[in-house]
């Protein structure tokens, strides 16, 4: 029996001495919202990229339900990168067609409902949207899939506080209990309320894996406050 997401001695090196991720081993369960937290350069995005097959580990192995990262796992992971990956000249309807064609778990109805909620015209071209709206469209695409694992890299970084609430509600409302969500963010206080577990990373190494409740109970402070204490400069 495999853990849901299993990383064994995963290392990603750039050059001879720089390990963006260093001998990282961890098993993550199903049905949890997990915060991937750490300061800039701690290796969060590198780790996320490796889970999604955008980067290849220098050594080690990543398995999703026992399968190596490949087309089969990509069909089950819904990934929101920290950048705009949609073609500027495409309109949103064309992007929905694209997702509908390639992802069997994509629900156009769900996406249209969310676009309507956020008053985004599906006929609009990506290049005409504001940065915040582009991010919202990407999040809508990602959360309109019924994936087993959602990997969200800085999902609320570029949007206003009101939209953050909507996005967090969207994340909570759209993921199902058998799925897991891995969220990387600097805005811990905004997402702390929805986190079940947290991973702290520093210089490519995992320094803490705990439930959010345990941190609050054992440390007597919020995850955000504890993060500031651990990573104080």
């Amino acid at each position, binding site marked *: 029996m495999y853990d849901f997401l299993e990383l064994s001695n995963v290392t990603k090196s750039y*050059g001879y001495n720089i390990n963006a991720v260093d001998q990282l081993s961890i098993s993550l369960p199903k049905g949890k919202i997990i915060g991937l937290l750490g300061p800039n350069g701690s290796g969060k995005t590198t780790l996320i990229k490796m889970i999604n*097959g955008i980067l*290849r580990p220098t050594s080690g192995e990543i398995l999703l339900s026992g399968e190596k990262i490949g087309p089969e796992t990509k069909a089950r*992971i819904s990934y929101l990168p920290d950048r705009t990956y949609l073609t500027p000249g495409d309109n949103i309807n064309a992007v929905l067609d694209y997702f509908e*064609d390639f992802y069997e778990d994509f629900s156009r109805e769900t996406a249209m409902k969310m676009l309507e909620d956020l008053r985004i015209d599906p006929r609009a071209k990506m290049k005409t949207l504001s940065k915040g709206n582009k991010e919202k469209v990407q999040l809508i695409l990602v959360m309109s899939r019924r994936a087993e694992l959602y990997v969200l890299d800085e999902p609320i970084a570029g949007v206003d506080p009101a939209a953050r609430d909507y996005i967090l509600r969207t994340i909570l409302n759209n993921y199902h209990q058998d799925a897991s969500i891995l969220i990387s963010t600097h805005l811990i206080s905004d997402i702390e309320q929805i986190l079940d577990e947290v991973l702290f990373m520093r210089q490519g190494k995992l320094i803490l894996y705990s439930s959010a409740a345990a941190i609050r109970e054992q440390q007597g402070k919020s995850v955000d406050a504890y993060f500031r204490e651990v990573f104080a400069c």
Partner: protein
Amino acid sequence: MLGKLFKHEFQRTSKVGGLLLIIAACVTILGAIYLVSPLFHGMLAPDDMRNPMIPIVGAILGFLGLLSYSGMLIGLSVGFMIYLGFRFYKSMYSDEGYLTHTLPVKSSDILIAKVVTGGVWMLIMTIAMTLMVAFLMLLGFAEVRGVSIGTIITSIKDTLEIFFGYIKEFTGMKLTSSGIMLLLMFFITPFANISILYGAITLGQYSWKNKGLMGIIAYLGIRMLMSIVSGILNLGMTVGRMSGEIDAGISLSLANDKYFTTLLVSVLFAVILFVWSIHVVRDRLNLE
């Protein structure tokens, strides 16, 4: 999934490809209108003109026009290839690659879809532009001679038959092998060129910095290497032919050898770079 990749790849390249074909067609139509216009016919009838310079000016203008027209078609074709290379880089190795490489499809399928689509587009361009040039030339001849295009085609066909007859009579060789070779080159070269271009861009990914620039340098390097390999092979085959019995058909044999080596080297490099690209995308992908 491969079918869906083809569908979307064609959709995304059709706007620019279609636009370039429309531009080429419009210029061809303008050329045709000029050829059937009184302006062109006036230049063909110097006796009726007061100024004897008009036919000379007309000939110069016609030559320049043909030169510009050919240049424009070559420019469109090269421009489209640069566009395909740029689009390949963007969709594979820039931010858009984050979507491309998280699709639940095999790396080889992504590359097959891109190479085949690019190759088909280049083939369409080549066929369309060949037909456009042929049409304008036939129309020009027909207008100069005051006959129909059909008559010109029949005349060209008769001339070619006589030419091939002479070749066969003097050299004892048929031009079938050359014809087949040229036909193969016509249909295979667009795909080979695209595979080489995409392979070079992919090779640029080995660099830590300036990956796009390194792709361009890799492309130029590969083209240079191909020329060297073709040159060496040609030289070897020419020496081989010359050391044997030299007959009247030697020039045709040498031409056939050149076609063969050019095609062989193109296909060889295209296949190697395609396989290498699959390896890079599948096993060594490192998007920034």
